[in-house]
């Protein structure tokens, strides 16, 4: 197969092929201690400072299961409508890699804690919002590996590196793996469904309070499995795309993999079963490890741990204490905020529901809160390739900006500049306004001077206005706004200039 591979544009690909997707999501649980020892789990600590003989896998050390991790997993399973096992075990997944202290990972294999669930997600279509049920195969527990950093070499991968550093702080952090059944029949909605599923899952985790689900810190990671087949034909060979680190990337990864596989198939080629690495910058993936020869992990029950046998009464207790699930909560918010399903879907897909909610709580008008989060702020987040929630702007700051708009101190354009300053880290709202000199020009004298200047410069326009073509006033308003660098209230300028010319509307 040639390297210079042809891709088929998405829309064209969808006329000939049906995608089948499967999503494996890893969620780092936000427990205070690790899965099998009492080491701390704080993100960003200096390398190898949150380690002990157990998570370093030192000879002789033994794991002891973190009960909170089991509890969190059961709660996740319940929120995803799963069956909770009455008895299950951990298994060892054996393979050699330097990020694994024991050269095996304690995981679950054929006896997962939670099975057979589902999660409904909503995607926008031309015919309005559509609900898609994504079935969940299993939810299981495992320990995270350490983190490798490869120095030198061209690829940033272990092969060709001059040396590699390993940080075991992450080793042993509780991970939950949530695996969907194959999602079929989504057609061109596949990228949106994938994204909506991960977004929904993230909201469920947040609502449960089991994880901070930050994709860019790796506390939520998604692997995208995808295959294409011609309608009516058998399933195609699937690829697994890793390194998909944002909601946007989930959507793009599905999109680009459909285009790539369609290109391979159109060219008469064969899709290779392999792991691919997604690149945020190009929006494309590159080939990784081939999985044609299935790796043999030699799973067997972990003899250092005893079976997990959650009592039914405990499970029911946890079920009874589950918080409002996001879908129910959204229905409530939709009616409270008086928005339609499409507007709600926009908020959900943008990951903005909680942000809007907290902004409203801070005193922002619901419509304005939605406007900011799904408009200007979302644009910036996409531009920066980060989640909305990770923008350095607070509900209080939005409330402040809104109150300044309300009293006429700011207009929309200036408000956007205020946020630009806040997001650039120039300081709080009032600091940015002061430093950038962003207050609306409300001094009539200054405005009148600017208006006179504009009128003098455009006598033909003045004539038009005087002759009754009031809409021509826009040209004068525009000139004044330009002179005042946008720091004027356009409505006020218009009123003043008409008054100046003795024209009434």
């Amino acid at each position, binding site marked *: 197969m040639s390297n210079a591979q042809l891709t088929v544009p998405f829309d064209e690909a969808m006329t000939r092929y049906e995608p089948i997707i499967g999503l494996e999501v890893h969620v780092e649980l936000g427990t205070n201690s690790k899965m099998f020892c009492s080491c701390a789990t704080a993100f960003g600590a200096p390398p190898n400072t949150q380690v002990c003989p157990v998570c370093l896998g030192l*000879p002789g050390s033994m794991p002891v299961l973190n009960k909170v991790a089991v509890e969190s997993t059961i709660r996740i399973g319940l929120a995803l409508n799963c069956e909770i096992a009455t008895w299950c075990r951990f298994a060892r997944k054996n393979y050699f890699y330097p990020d694994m202290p024991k050269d095996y990972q304690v995981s679950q294999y054929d006896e997962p804690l939670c099975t057979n669930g589902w999660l409904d997600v909503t995607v926008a279509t031309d015919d309005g919002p559509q609900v898609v049920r994504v079935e969940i195969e299993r939810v299981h527990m495992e320990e995270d590996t350490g983190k490798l950093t490869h120095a030198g070499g061209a690829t940033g991968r272990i092969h060709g590196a001059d040396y590699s550093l390993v940080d075991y702080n992450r080793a042993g952090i509780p991970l939950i793996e949530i695996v969907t059944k194959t999602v079929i029949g989504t057609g061109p909605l596949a990228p949106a469904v994938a994204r909506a599923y991960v977004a929904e899952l993230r909201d469920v985790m947040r609502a449960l309070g089991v994880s901070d689900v930050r994709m860019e810190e790796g506390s939520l990671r998604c692997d995208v499995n995808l295959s294409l087949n011609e309608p009516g034909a058998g399933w195609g060979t699937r690829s697994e795309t890793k390194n998909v680190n944002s909601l946007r990337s989930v959507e793009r990864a599905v999109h680009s993999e459909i285009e790539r596989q369609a290109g391979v198939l159109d060219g008469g080629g064969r899709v290779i079963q392999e792991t691919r690495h997604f690149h945020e910058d190009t929006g494309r993936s590159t080939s990784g490890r081939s999985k044609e020869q299935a790796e043999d992990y030699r799973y067997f029950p972990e*003899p250092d741990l005893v079976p997990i046998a959650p009592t039914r009464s405990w499970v029911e207790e946890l079920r009874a204490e589950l918080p409002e699930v996001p879908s129910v909560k959204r229905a409530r918010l939709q009616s409270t905020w008086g928005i339609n399903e499409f507007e709600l879907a926009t908020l959900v897909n943008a990951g903005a529901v909680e942000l809007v909610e907290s902004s409203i709580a801070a005193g922002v008008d619901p419509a304005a809160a939605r406007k900011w989060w799904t408009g200007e702020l979302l644009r910036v987040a996409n531009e920066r390739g980060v989640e909305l929630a990770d923008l350095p702007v607070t509900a209080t700051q939005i409330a402040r900006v809104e109150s300044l708009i309300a009293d006429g101190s700011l207009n929309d354009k200036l408000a956007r500049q205020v946020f630009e300053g806040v997001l650039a880290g120039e300081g709080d709202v009032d600091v940015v306004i002061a430093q950038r000199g962003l207050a609306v020009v409300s001094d009539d004298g200054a405005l009148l001077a600017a208006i006179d200047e504009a009128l003098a410069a455009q006598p033909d326009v003045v004539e038009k206005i005087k002759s009754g073509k009031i809409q021509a006033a826009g040209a004068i308003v525009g000139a004044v706004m330009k002179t005042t660098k946008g720091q004027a209230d356009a409505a006020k300028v218009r009123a003043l200039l008409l008054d100046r010319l003795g024209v009434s509307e």
Partner: protein
Amino acid sequence: MTVAAADLIRQPASVLAAAISAGEVSSVEVTKAHLARIAEVDERVHAFLQVTAEAALESAQVVDAKRKTGAKLGSLAGVPIAVKDVLTMRGVPTTCGSKILEGWCPPYDSTVVSRLRAADMVILGKTNMDEFAMGSSTEHSAYGPTHNPWDLARIPGGSGGGSAAALAAFETPLSIGTDTGGSIRQPAAVTGTVGVKPTYGGVSRYGLVALASSLDQAGPCARSVLDAALLHSVIAGHDPRDSTSINAPVPDVVAAANRGDVRGLRIGLVKELSGEGYQAGVLQRFNEAVELLQGLGAEVVEVSCPHFDYALGAYYLILPSEASSNLARFDGMRYGLRVGDDGSNSVEQVMSLSREAGFGAEVKRRIMLGTYALSSGYYDAYYGQAQKVRTLITRDFNAAFEKADVLISPTAPTTAFKIGEKVDDPLAMYLNDIATIPVNLAGNCAMSLPVGLSPADGLPVGLQIMAPPMADDRLYLVGAALESALTDSWGHLLIEEVPDL
């Protein structure tokens, strides 16, 4: 009490503890006597891989000072002990008898070592063993074999040959062993000492470098049943660091050892652990012991455990499977031996070269067996089947314990063989553990104690007592009664007959 150093090293631990506690002798004197003995004979015995003389004397001084303050001392305070080199001890090299761990100093104490320290015992050092506890002769130690004090040309058993030989050579009054398929009991049998494999989960495995996690168990090694009981009670008990540790009171093994009574007890002879393959001299001493037990008032019944015939096969699938995974971490990346890290090799190659150079032949053999047994497509036929056999063996035990309170058999089919005799014949070596393996598979407890010298070669013969899970006290009840009757007939413990080194 004024005793010569030569006498101190021959005293039972119980006597030493009482004398230290009463101030009749200091722990420092006792410790020095044993260190001197080690210096005198260990060149020939090679029971020790590490002698921690300085730390031992410091511990002894602490105990002596503590006694002088009037503080109450534990039952074995101030008594020296040796620890098999498979248990971690902070700051002291732990090699597991392997080159791959040469120089590795664990940053933490195993729970067993912590308990020895908490009991104010004096740790003399680390004892030799077959590499990663794989073997029945201690010939598979990367640091050279240990010699049996009864005949230095012979093996001291294995894998814990160092711990057993150190007792028989009077280098220590007590030692710690670990038993995965007989590594405490078979060395006890061939050195004329006492060794106990406690109930699985009875003694914490935390800090025991795992061979086969579902089979490994640390236990006491001593020259008498009472001494073993005293040590058993120090190291046993629940440990939250070991998930498989049993959270229940430890059976009162010391009381049982002090009582020693078999009257009215039903003792089962396991039909399958006798006959073909067992030396005549071994069977003769075993049968005499059975008669003795009957004479002491025990009721002897024959029981059948038909699935024991499959125990060795099942064991040599389960053990290598677990070992292949447990030993994966020795890859040259984080500690121990690293080979080939010269910039020309990939990380996989460095791992491979390190393991190639660091592991001995027997370890490699078992890693390969285990890797194969766990492989996709073979798992059900090998590991899966072996686990089923394991269940059947447990059922055999359960049925047998309906008919008998304890079961007995010879501990090992032969007396100590010559060094080099079986080292190139793995199957012959594996057969040493034919009588001890079923207990590890089922997870119950067993003891080996000496019942005389084989008339054929004048070497010690061991008898194995097996009891149900968490009925470890029964081992001591029967063991103490038998030991008492035997020493009455001999006039001393069998170990007194060991030749002078």
